[in-house]
């Protein structure tokens, strides 16, 4: 317990001033459920947020968004790339995208959008799992969809830091 606390403290310490849409819980274990809390600290360049769309990455199943007062919640279902075993059932399709809309979150306010998920053990531990988010506002769109590529193509020196990174969670091996 003490160790977990330490990790939490460390994680909080390194997280930058939350200027991006991000996940509140930065670490999760594969083969377990994960409550994904998307924190939305601001609108799009001052404009109020009217819609949040989250893409569910492959390997994440049993997605159930938490209803939110003043917002409609919709899901888009689709086929998974592979079948997943979930409590003895074979799942070949499920939620691929979750969208909250119809509400209005002013730039000066903060809010959270929550969903329950299960991280299957097909996911690779010690990597970062990204949930791309599109934040739509009254004017403008912010796409939190940048996923760093590892060793892609040539070795480009001085790879610049993404300015709109996708929210990510560090996957830990099953204990």
């Amino acid at each position, binding site marked *: 317990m003490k160790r977990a606390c330490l990790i939490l403290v460390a994680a909080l310490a390194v997280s930058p001033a939350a200027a991006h849409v991000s996940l509140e819980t930065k670490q999760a274990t594969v083969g377990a459920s994960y409550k994904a809390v998307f924190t939305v600290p601001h609108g799009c360049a001052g404009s109020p947020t009217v819609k949040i769309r989250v893409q569910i990455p492959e390997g994440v199943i049993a997605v159930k968004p938490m209803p939110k007062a003043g917002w409609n919640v919709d899901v888009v279902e689709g086929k998974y790339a592979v079948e997943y075993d979930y409590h003895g059932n074979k799942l070949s399709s499920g939620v691929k995208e979750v969208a909250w809309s119809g509400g209005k979150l002013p730039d000066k306010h903060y809010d959270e959008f929550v969903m329950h998920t299960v991280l299957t053990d097909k996911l690779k531990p010690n990597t970062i799992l990204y949930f791309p988010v599109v934040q739509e506002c009254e004017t403008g769109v912010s796409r939190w969809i940048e996923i760093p590529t590892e060793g*892609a*193509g040539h070795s480009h020196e001085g790879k610049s830091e993404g300015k709109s990174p996708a929210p990510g969670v560090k996957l830990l091996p099953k204990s």
Partner: protein
Amino acid sequence: MRFFAALATLLFAAGFAGAAWAHAALISVEPPSGSMLAAAPKAVELRFSEAVTPGAIRLIDGAGRARDDVRISASGETISVAIPVDLPEGTAVVSYRVISQDGHPIAGSVIFSIGMPTATKLPAAVDGGVNALIWLARVGLYLGLFVGVGGVFFARWIAWSMIGMAVPRMAIAIGIPGAAASLGALGLDLLGLPLTALTTAAPWKVALGASAGPALLVAIAAMLLALMALRSAWYARALAIVALVGVGLSLAMTGHAATAPPEVLMRPAIFLHGLGVAIWIGALAPLVALVSRSTTAPLPIVNRFSRIAALAVGVLAVTGLALAIVQLEKPGALVETRYGMILASKLVLVTGLLALAALNRFRLTPALARDGTGTPALMRSILAECAIALAILAVVAGWRFTPPPRTIVPDTPLAIHIHSDKAMFQVLVSPGKPGINDVVLQLMNGEGSPLAARETTLTLSLPERGIEPMERKASLGPDGHWHVRKVELPFAGRWHARIDVLVSDFEQITLEDELDVTSR
């Protein structure tokens, strides 16, 4: 006489039957120079602004070997170089030398890498000796045409006297080998061969096939006719005038001035310009001889020449102005381009020549007529005219090496190719120098087929100069590529280019690379 008329008509028809000719320039290359390819392309396609004839096209493969199993096919403005299938990995160079319709060679090279780049060397540059030969031969040719043929014409039609024919005779003796050497040197230049290759047939054959070949043959014919006109015969005067027409024709048949649009005006302008030069310059040497021989006898000749020369100078001025306007396009080119600088030096020399001519016409000739004095002064003045004329011919021969501003196309853009497993981006920055640039982004997926994008953003930074990322949205052009126009790159240096491509709502592809911007 009828024979000569027929010959003249034939020469005329040959000279003017050409299609719309101009100095060709390379427009595009497929695959683009600097490409990184997964496998050898089937062919390299070179597209030029005008129809071209292939001269020497060579392929040096990634192992540094010159390949002789390259097949070249040309159709109109496109030249296709079929690449052998067994091309090894590494950087290959296709060097090309094609003949544009004005008879001048256009050379360059295309580089592409298969798998990984290697340090393949470009083929050696052109032999400097060939350029010297081209220039010398051309000066010789001009001497033969203007001093030689022009001198004979003066003797037969203006002076009615064969006094002072030694210089024209000598000029023709220089001019005929000069024309022949021009032909050989042109062949060497077209094929990119060294001087030693003059003993082989290839350069001569190629030169005769280019538009300059027939023009040089007409020049040789004109000089031979002038030589025959030196002999006293009843048809000598006819020969002299046909030879003079040949001078104009030979000049109007080739070269970047004659092939400039509108050709209907430019070719006659060159023709008349050539006639004017031959009449004026050709008269100088015989005049010196006439004036030195006796004081009073040449007076009617000098008077007659003065009147004709005034007409010739008028024609030269009008045609010269028209040609300069077409070739330069804007006055600034007079000092900004090498072509313009040659023209500027020529104009300075011509001004000197005109001053001397005016002195002769309005001061020295009347003095001669009045009291028979001033012969030595007139002679000195004409000798100075000769020297300036020679200098003009030497300067003008340098035009062979400088494309006129009209034909100069913007430099080939700076190109970089970035690829990852997901995508390949071709980035073209033109002109690729510090200042305002236009950027074209060609997007392809990992398989090389076009990538449909919703949005494309280009971000440029120059960390070494502390220039923070400048973000510019690209717009999709009708050509299917993304364009960012008027991007200011304030400094040369190693720019960092980052391209963000939004493929779908949630998917973005970002590729980055360095862009070396040099002042060149």
